């Protein structure tokens, strides 16, 4: 280590000591916020998994989100399975592996939930399951959620997180947009409340259907919300686009989001909206 010879305070012994220390530092001790680039101790991370500096909500699994969000939950439709409509090579294996990892049958968790005294229908999309993409099972579960809510006169709260259509399921993925929209329409016609919470990222066909259909649309700070992919836009118009074009804050400024809500406050906000945002029964 010739490099260190010029420093008379650093001996061979020091360097060895440093190496040993290095090995004792656990992995993932530091985290870096993808939004503001602040580095912070993983220990500082609360169960909400947000950046202590800018409140960006990290991408988390549906089950992790569920753990602090509601007081009670009973899950629906855990047995539905994709029938691999394109016979896409390796798709069934990929789904199986992810099912084990996420303990979900597809990219959304649905069920009946309770916050305080309000019972409602809840859906949480999971960005760790093929980037929350909209497959046939995802579409069927969300459709059934709205049908259940309509039948039982409940509000729906849906957390979106999605890269858009499920490539491996082709055109049938597109048809889910129409199927879900019809169920939303019936739910709306029954005078029932639909609240969307946009989380990072919400894009493509999900933005172009049920993510933008809420009576009230909330979003987590700095989450990506858009229709077309940034690279597709830049290639098409041959120009760089601003970094924050598809940030929830910019989408709000253009009139498509009602409020930005920090993850720590979501439960409180939902409790209030579920009680006061829907039909006036007083």
């Amino acid at each position, binding site marked *: 280590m010739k490099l260190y010879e010029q420093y008379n305070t650093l001996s061979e012994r020091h360097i060895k000591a440093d190496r040993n220390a290095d090995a004792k530092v656990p992995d993932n001790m530091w985290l870096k916020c993808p939004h503001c680039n602040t580095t912070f101790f993983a220990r500082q991370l609360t169960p909400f998994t947000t950046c202590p500096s800018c409140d960006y909500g990290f991408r988390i699994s549906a089950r992790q989100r569920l753990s602090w969000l509601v007081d009670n939950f009973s899950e629906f439709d855990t047995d539905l399975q994709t029938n691999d409509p394109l016979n896409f090579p390796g798709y069934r294996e990929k789904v199986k592996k992810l099912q084990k990892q996420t303990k979900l049958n597809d990219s959304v968790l649905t069920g009946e939930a309770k916050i305080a005294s309000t019972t409602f229908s809840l859906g949480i999309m999971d960005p760790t399951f093929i980037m929350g993409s909209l497959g046939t099972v995802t579409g069927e579960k969300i459709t059934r959620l709205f049908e259940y809510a309509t039948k039982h006169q409940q509000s729906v709260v849906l957390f979106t997180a999605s890269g858009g*259509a499920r490539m491996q399921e082709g055109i049938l*993925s597109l048809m889910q947009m129409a199927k879900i929209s019809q169920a939303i329409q019936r739910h709306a016609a029954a005078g029932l409340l639909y609240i969307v919470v946009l989380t990072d990222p919400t894009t493509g066909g999900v933005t172009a259907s049920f993510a*933008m259909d809420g009576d009230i649309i909330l979003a987590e700070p700095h989450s990506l919300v858009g*229709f077309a992919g940034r690279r597709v836009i830049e290639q098409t118009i041959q120009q760089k686009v601003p970094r924050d074009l598809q940030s929830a804050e910019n989408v709000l400024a253009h009139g498509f989001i009602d409020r930005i809500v920090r993850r720590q406050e979501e439960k409180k906000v939902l409790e209030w909206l579920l009680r006061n945002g829907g039909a006036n029964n007083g």
Partner: protein
Amino acid sequence: MGKKLSAMDIVGRARSDRKITGIEIINNIFDDFMELHGDRLSDDDPAIVGGIALFHNQPVTVITTNRGSNTSEKIKTHFGSAMPAGYRKSLRLIKQAAKFNRPVLCFVNTAGAFPSKDAEEKGQGAAIAQNILQISSLPIPIITVIYGEGGSGGALALACGDEVWMLEDSTYSILSPEGFSSIMWKDSARTAEAAELMQMTPQKLLEKKIIDGIIPESDNHLQTCQAIDQVLWHHLKVLQKLDKEQLIQMRMARYRKF
């Protein structure tokens, strides 16, 4: 039909410069066409052309995507890729049709909704979402003919009514085969393989009941228009016999099965 074409051959034909245009279809199928402009919010997108026309002496609302016929029009229409204002104009016209109990006929040939900074900030996603949501409950017959490319949500926004038909040489998919192969395999050389796998051709889509039928196409555009006319005339008559409740129930069932 009967020709053995690969999926990529059909993609090529769907995108061909000699492809029939929406304006040709309107001029040949309808006796009169009164174009109506604007989304009543801020813009008029030339990539969507719509208005009222006479179809076998009956007033109908007609909407088509428009790729433009010369360079300057092609630029203004983004080669047939609509802005949010285009979708909002189409929804306005379809709601107007519902008010006056006029059937709606849509003609679609688009690579997809236009991706740009402006389109994002004006709510491309929200505009398409509103079409899909609101069209689902409008109780007038709505038939769509895809006559070239049916590109993703931008096509679905005008193809979510009672029946969807396709010309023989057209496609309908979640994205282009080029995009698909580059996303799935990071390899744009596998485009032909992607086109085959995606099942984006009329025959495959008919097997999956995504579409209701295939309309034969000819190099003679007049003949193609006659074939479209026949299908629309026949199927419109059937749909118009249904009462409003039945029509909506059947439309719901059409999409619920997917």
